[in-house]
C-alpha cells in the first residue's frame, strides 16, 4: 500500500500533524511521535489545525493549578514566547513536591517556635551568614517582582532558597528561629505564584490569618550587613598594607577592593600586575613586574 492511499483512506493531508498518521501505523504511536518531535519538531503557536494544543483543563487535572501557574511563570519573562514541554511542566511539579515534602519536615520542628527580629542580633557566624543569604534572596525577589515583573528570575531565587534551607541543620533554638523565619519568608514569596499549596502550608503553621491576608515584611537591612575582616596585602612578598573585606568576598570582589586602595597604588605605579593570589580570609599577594 502506498502512503498516499493510506492518507486518502484515513483523510489525512500533508499539512496535518504526523500524529494522525502514526496512530494508523502503531499501537504505541506515542513512542514514535516523541522521537519524531524531538528530531524534526518545529515550534508553533498552539492551534487546533496543527493539533499541537495542550488543554489547560487536562494539565490542571494531571498536575494541579499551582504547577501550571508555576510553570508558565517560570518558563520565560512575560513578554517572551515560550515552548510548552512535558519536561518543563514535570520540573515545576517536582519542585512543588520538593517544597511540600520540605514543609512537612520543617513544620513540626518550628511550629511552636516564636521569633522576633530582636532575637537575631547576637547570632553565631553560621546563622548570621544564613540569614544574610535569606534576606539577600528576599530583597532580590521583591525587586524582580515589583520593578520588572520578572517572575522567572523571582522563582529561580525561591528555588535557590529552598536548596539553601534543605542543606541547613538547625542545632539549637536559635537555629530553629532562623529556620522558621526563612521558611515563612519562602512561603510568602511563593504564594502569589502557587497560592494554594502556600495557603495550606501556612494553615499548618497555625497562623491566625490566611496567607492572602498577610503582608510582606520589610527586608532586614541589619541582616544584610556583612562581617568585615582585615587581611594583610603583600606586594611581591612584602607586607604593604591591610585592607578590610567582607568575610565571604570572592577573589573578584577582593581584587576590586585591593586595587582601589590608595596606599597600595604607589607600589603598583609604572608596573604591571602579573598575578593576584587570594588565600581566602587570610592573605592577598600581588605579583608585579
Amino acid at each position, binding site marked *: 500500500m502506498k502512503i498516499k492511499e493510506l*492518507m486518502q483512506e484515513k483523510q489525512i493531508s500533508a499539512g496535518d500533524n504526523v500524529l494522525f498518521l502514526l496512530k494508523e501505523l502503531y499501537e504505541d504511536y506515542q513512542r*514514535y511521535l516523541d522521537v519524531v518531535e524531538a528530531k524534526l519538531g518545529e515550534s508553533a503557536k498552539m492551534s487546533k489545525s496543527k493539533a499541537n494544543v495542550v488543554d489547560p483543563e487536562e494539565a490542571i487535572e494531571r498536575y494541579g493549578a499551582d*504547577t501550571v501557574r508555576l510553570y508558565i511563570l517560570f518558563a520565560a519573562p512575560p513578554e517572551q514566547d515560550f*515552548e510548552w514541554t512535558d519536561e518543563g511542566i514535570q520540573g515545576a511539579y517536582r519542585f512543588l513536591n520538593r517544597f511540600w515534602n520540605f514543609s512537612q519536615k520543617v513544620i513540626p520542628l518550628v511550629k511552636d517556635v516564636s521569633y522576633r527580629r530582636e532575637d537575631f542580633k547576637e547570632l553565631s557566624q553560621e546563622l548570621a551568614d544564613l540569614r544574610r543569604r535569606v534576606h539577600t534572596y528576599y530583597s532580590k525577589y521583591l525587586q524582580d517582582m515589583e520593578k520588572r515583573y520578572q517572575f522567572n528570575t523571582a522563582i529561580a531565587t525561591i528555588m535557590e532558597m529552598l536548596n539553601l534551607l534543605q542543606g541547613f541543620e538547625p542545632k539549637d533554638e536559635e537555629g530553629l528561629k532562623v529556620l522558621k523565619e526563612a521558611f515563612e519568608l519562602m512561603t510568602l514569596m511563593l504564594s502569589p505564584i502557587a497560592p494554594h499549596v502556600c495557603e495550606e502550608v501556612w494553615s499548618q503553621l497555625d497562623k491566625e490569618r490566611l496567607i492572602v491576608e498577610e503582608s510582606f515584611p520589610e527586608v532586614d537591612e541589619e541582616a544584610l550587613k556583612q562581617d568585615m575582616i582585615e587581611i594583610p596585602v603583600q606586594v611581591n612578598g612584602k607586607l604593604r598594607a591591610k585592607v578590610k573585606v567582607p568575610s565571604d568576598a570572592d577573589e573578584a570582589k577582593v581584587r576590586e577592593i585591593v586595587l582601589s586602595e590608595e596606599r597600595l597604588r604607589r607600589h603598583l605605579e609604572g608596573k604591571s600586575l602579573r598575578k593576584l593570589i587570594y588565600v581566602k580570609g587570610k592573605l592577598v599577594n600581588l605579583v608585579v613586574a
Partner: protein
Amino acid sequence: MKGYDPKKIERKWQTEWEKRGVFKAKEKAKSSKRYVLEMFPYPSGKIHMGHVRNYTIGDAIARFLRMKGYEVLHPMGWDAFGLPAENAAIKQGIHPARWTYRNIEQMREQLRALGFSYDWDRELATCDEEYYRWNQWIFLQMLRRGVAYRRSALVNWCPHDETVLANEQVIEGKCWRCGTQVVQREIPSWFLRITDYAQRLLDDLEKLKGKWPERVVAQQRNWIGRSQGALLKFLVGETPVEVFTTRPDTVFGATFVVLAPEHPLTLRLAEEGGKEEEVKEFLEKVKRLSTRERSTLRDKEGVFLGVYAVNPATGREIPVWTANYVLYEYGTGAIMCVPAHDQRDWEFAKKYDLPVIPVVKPYQGAWDFERGAYEGRGRLVNSGDFNGMDSEEAKEKITLWLKDKGLGEPKTTYRLKDWNVSRQRYWGTPIPVVYCDRCGVVPVPEESLPVKLPLGVEFSGRGNPLGSSEEFVNTTCPKCGAPAKRETDTMDTFFDSSWYFLRYCDPKNEQEAFSKESAHYWMPVDIYVGGIEHAVLHLLYSRFFQKFFKDIGLVEEDEPFEKLITQGMVLKKWVSVGRLLEALGLTEESGVEELKSKLSELA
C-alpha cells in the same frame, strides 16, 4: 508524612477564599490602590493556554501587590457580544444568548479552578442589559456632541444571502456560507469621529513611553499616521481636482493625476472625456475587490478618463486617470503622480507608457530613472525658479508659492479614519435611534434605555435578524408620537470593550455608567495585561473613549492604562506529515512498509 495532593488542597482553598470574600476590593485611601486588569475574554466556551498565561501573569501581580499592602482591584468579565454566537445560532439553531451564557458558566468554572484572585462581585458580561444600556447612553452622549454621525460606507455584501458580511466572513472573496462572490456596497452607517482626537491620541503617546512596550507605541503612532504636506489644485477646465501630497517639492515632476474609482468626479470626467463605457466596466471590476485586497495589489491597473488637468506648477496639461491602487478613503481620493520620485507611480507609468520627468537630483552620484524612482533627498532640477534648492527646503517654499497663486495650501493629514461602528448583526448593542418620516433621525430618550434586544427572532443567515423582528422595528417617534422605525444596526463589539474597565470601578450602578468618584478612585488601570494583537484597535479605541469621557467631565485622567504588559505566545512542537516524509526522503508515492522501516531506524 502526607504526600502532596494538589487536587484536595486547591479545591479546599478556592472555596475558603470565596467564602471569606478575601478578594473583594474596597475604596480606601487613594495612594494605596492598585488596579490590575487582564483583557477580558470572548466566551468561546473553553479557555486555552494563551488565556491561562495572560491571567496567571495578572494574578501573580495582583496577589503580590495585595501582599505589599495595596488595596487591589482585580476584576474579570466577558466580552460577550459578537459573531461566533450568531454563527452558532445559524448553524446549530441555538439562541446566541443561551449559547453565550452557557459558555460563560463553563469558562468561569475553568478560571475558578486556576485559583485566580478575582473580585467576582464585579463580574460583568457586555451582553447583559445592565451593561449595554450604558453603551447606548454613551452613544447618545456622542451623538449629542457630534462625535457620532451617519454617512454611507462601503461594506461586503453577499447578493445571495442579502446580508452584510464581516471581513472575517469573506473567504477568498467569497461568502463563508454560500460561496457566492462578495461585492462591495454602500449603505448608511454610524461613525465615531475619532479623527477629531487624532492629535491628542498622538501627543499623549509621549506619556506612555517607558510604560508601554515600544512596539505598541510605535504601532499606534503609525496607525494614527500623521503626515504634513500640501493640498494642491489641478484644474480640469473649471473643475478643481484636489490632491494631498507629502512631496510638494516634486510637483514640477507630476506627469499625470489619478482619481480613486469611487471618487465622485471619476464618472463625470469620464463622460466629459468620452470614456464612459470603459471606465464603467473598470469600476465594476474594482467593486469586486475588498479594501484589503486593493491595498496589497501587485497588478496596478487603470483607465485614462480622456481629460487633462493643469499642473499648477508648470502650467502644462497632464492626463487624468483612474486606478485600482488609489483608495477613496485615504487623503482626498486623488493623487498627483510623480513617477520619477515615487515607486508606485513609476510602476504605473512604465506599464502605461507615461512620461517620467526627474526633478530631484541626488546629492551624490547619478540615478538611472530607467530602473526605478529616486525617493530620497536632493537638489531640485527642471523646477523653474526653484532649481538648485534643497528638496526638504523646497517643500515649504513651493507650497507657499502655490498658495499665493491660489492653487495650494499647507495641510496636516492623518491615516486614522473615523470609526464605523455599525454592524448589520443581531448579537450586539442596538444603536438607540429611531427614524420618523416627519422628524428624521430621533435619538431614543435616555429614560427609555435600554433598547432591548428582542429574543424571539429568526436566524436564517439571510439579512439582519433584527430587521425581521416586527415587534422590534415598529415603534413610535419619541418626538411626535407618529409610527416610526427603529435602527436595526448594532454596535461594533469594540465599542463594548472600550470602557469596560470603567464599569468595573462601579459595576452595580443603576443610575450611571459609573460614578465619577469610583472612577477617580480606581483609575487609571495600573497594570494592564493582554496580547500584542490588540496593540492598535482595542488599545486605541479605549484611549479615545477615555478622552471623550474626560471632555464630558466623567473622568480625570487622560490615559486609561498606566503600564501595559503584552504577554508572549505559548508555543508547542509539532511535525507535519509532509515534513516527516521529506526528512525521511520519501514521498506520498512511497510504500507504507518503507515508511515503517525508516521510522524504526529513527526510533
